[in-house]
């Protein structure tokens, strides 16, 4: 597959007399293949929006390489801008213009036919409210308008920053369907979101960023598999046998966490081996279940942003990795 978006070693440093030097992007890498829906995840302040803004020419990088549709940026940005639709952060529009005016002005600036405005208004469900001023719109409606503005160009690459923000449950489902349909039509979609359940449902692949560096990347299943850590839940016929089972398994080099009525094992390659070990000690298993990890737990683990009782995590407190990152499959 060909790469629609490539970023290598991207760096952006902010210098301030008061706050000193801060590396918003610290050698960040990313690669998105054609026709995919790609999730771009990271805690607040990790560099997601800086990456997107840099990619779109709004911020000057201090180093690194970027390319969209095989063309080097920022030199070729004016040439590829017509093929990239984007919304960055919260949708912002002139409040006294209607949605139709807003899109019509953008379409005129982009030399697009007027009918395209009606097409995207229909697509995002704003057809009947298109004549109203944007200032009367709810956050969800503004979000729909933002997506409409990004789709106006019928782009090859669609970059959406938090597109589901403010949408109602029906709207989120519609957005999910829209993303899939766009990808099926050949459009590549980069989706930045904190709704990790959605990302897991929609995306083919993900990149996770923390403190300006990539901490994981690849197809969603591979990222999940790479971080499942072979976790297995074990229940015994007799709860009273749990301490003896814990001792047996620990002796065999398995990491064990005792719960009230079961044991959680990690680092287990073959669950059958657990069953055999326990049976040899006359301990009989009533349940032996591999525990599937979800994207949220992988995200929290990789970025070290899981809440800790009694602690208030600060925005910049997340995991920093070495330059190699944690590969989940393919990548730059």
């Amino acid at each position, binding site marked *: 597959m060909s790469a629609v978006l490539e970023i290598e070693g991207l760096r952006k440093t902010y210098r301030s007399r008061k706050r000193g030097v801060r590396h918003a992007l610290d050698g960040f890498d990313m690669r998105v293949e054609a026709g995919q829906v790609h999730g771009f995840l990271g805690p607040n302040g990790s560099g997601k929006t800086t990456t997107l803004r840099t990619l*779109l020419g709004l911020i000057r990088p201090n180093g690194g390489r970027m390319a969209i549709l095989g063309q080097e940026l920022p030199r070729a940005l004016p040439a590829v801008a017509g093929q990239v639709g984007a919304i960055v952060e919260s949708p912002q529009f002139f409040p006294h*213009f209607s949605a139709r005016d807003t899109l019509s002005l953008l379409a005129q*600036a982009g030399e697009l036919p007027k009918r395209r405005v009606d097409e995207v208004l229909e697509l995002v469900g704003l057809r009947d409210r298109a004549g109203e001023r944007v200032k009367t719109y709810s956050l969800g409606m503004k979000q729909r308008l933002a997506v409409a*503005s990004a789709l106006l160009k019928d782009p090859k690459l669609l970059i959406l920053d938090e597109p589901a923000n403010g949408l109602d449950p029906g709207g989120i489902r519609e957005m999910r369907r829209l993303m899939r349909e766009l990808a099926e039509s050949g459009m590549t979609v980069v989706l930045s979101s904190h709704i990790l359940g959605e990302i897991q449902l929609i995306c083919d692949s993900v990149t996770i960023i923390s403190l300006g560096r990539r901490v994981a990347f690849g197809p969603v299943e591979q990222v999940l598999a790479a971080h499942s850590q072979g976790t297995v839940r074990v229940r015994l016929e007799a709860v009273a046998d749990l301490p003896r089972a814990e001792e047996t398994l620990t002796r065999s080099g398995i990491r064990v966490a005792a719960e009230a009525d079961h044991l959680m094992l990690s680092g287990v390659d073959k669950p059958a081996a657990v069953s055999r070990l326990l049976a040899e000690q006359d301990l009989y298993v009533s349940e032996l279940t591999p525990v599937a990890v979800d994207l949220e737990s992988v995200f929290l683990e990789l970025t070290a942003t899981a809440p800790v009782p009694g602690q208030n995590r600060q925005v910049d407190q997340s995991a920093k990795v070495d330059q190699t990152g944690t590969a989940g499959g393919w990548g730059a």
Partner: protein
Amino acid sequence: MSLFVTELRRLTKRRVTRLLLVLLVVGLATVATAFSFSSHKLSPEVVAAAQADSDAQYRKSVEEWKRSVTECEAAQARGEQTEERYGENCGKDYQPQPEMFDPKWNLPYQFDFRAEFPTFIAVFAGAVALFAFIVGASFVGAEWNTGGMMNLLLWRPKRLAVLGTKLAALLTTVLGLSVVLGALWTAVFWLIGTQRGTTAKMTAGVWRSIGLDGLRAVALILVVGAVAFALASLGRHTAMALGAAVALFAVSEVGIRIAVGVLSVPFGDRYVLSTYAQSWFMKQAELFDYDTCEFARGACEPAKYVVTWQQSAVVFGIGVVAALVAAFWTMRRRDVA
């Protein structure tokens, strides 16, 4: 070209543009209407009536003078002292003369297009310049503030071209408006002149002079619009331009005046911006230094310093170029965060 047309459309669609345009037109129309009522055509009947009033005032004055002289002579016959009350020789030497009762004093005000229209060009320029300032500042300031500029840059990632096109759209609109409203303004005052005033002595030379006044007015309007645009672009907010204007006014018109007064700088007003605006409109501004006079020795011709409109052109030119260069430079260099 499509971006230029889009920006023209965006500017004319904006509520602040439309609202201020209505206020501008209503304001100018009010000034013209109110002024037209204060002017009266000097018809032969009006002139004759004024002449008759003057003649009557003269006759009445002569009668009063005669009565006063008669009273004085009667008092002298009674042996009374009259000089204090009636003056020397009973005031016989002060007989009222006809030329002391000029009929012009009894005429109502009549608007003289030739003499007075240049002042109204300055009034027009002030009103349109205020419009250009607010619209120019908000056109780019509100775009930054509401994210419109960022959206536009996602579509047209050529920052200097985008800013330049927006500026061109603003100046084109302001120029078009100045020309159209200026033509209407001239026509209205010409009409007032013909119907309720006078348009006498309007030679080709006078028209050329009025035309040049108009050109200078339009140039000043464009300079004000461009500077407001540049300041709002620098601060990425409309309020930046308004704040800078207030600061400039305070420094130039108040601060510098106080400073040159305290330091007794000769011709201190040459450092004040409004002197250059005055000189731009009036072709020159004359400053006098009365400290060079010793009035105890009698009448004095104080030292004079002349600020020409060409000097004003240099001052305003440097100002607008500096503001625009700074705005474009920061547009190219600064991140859009």
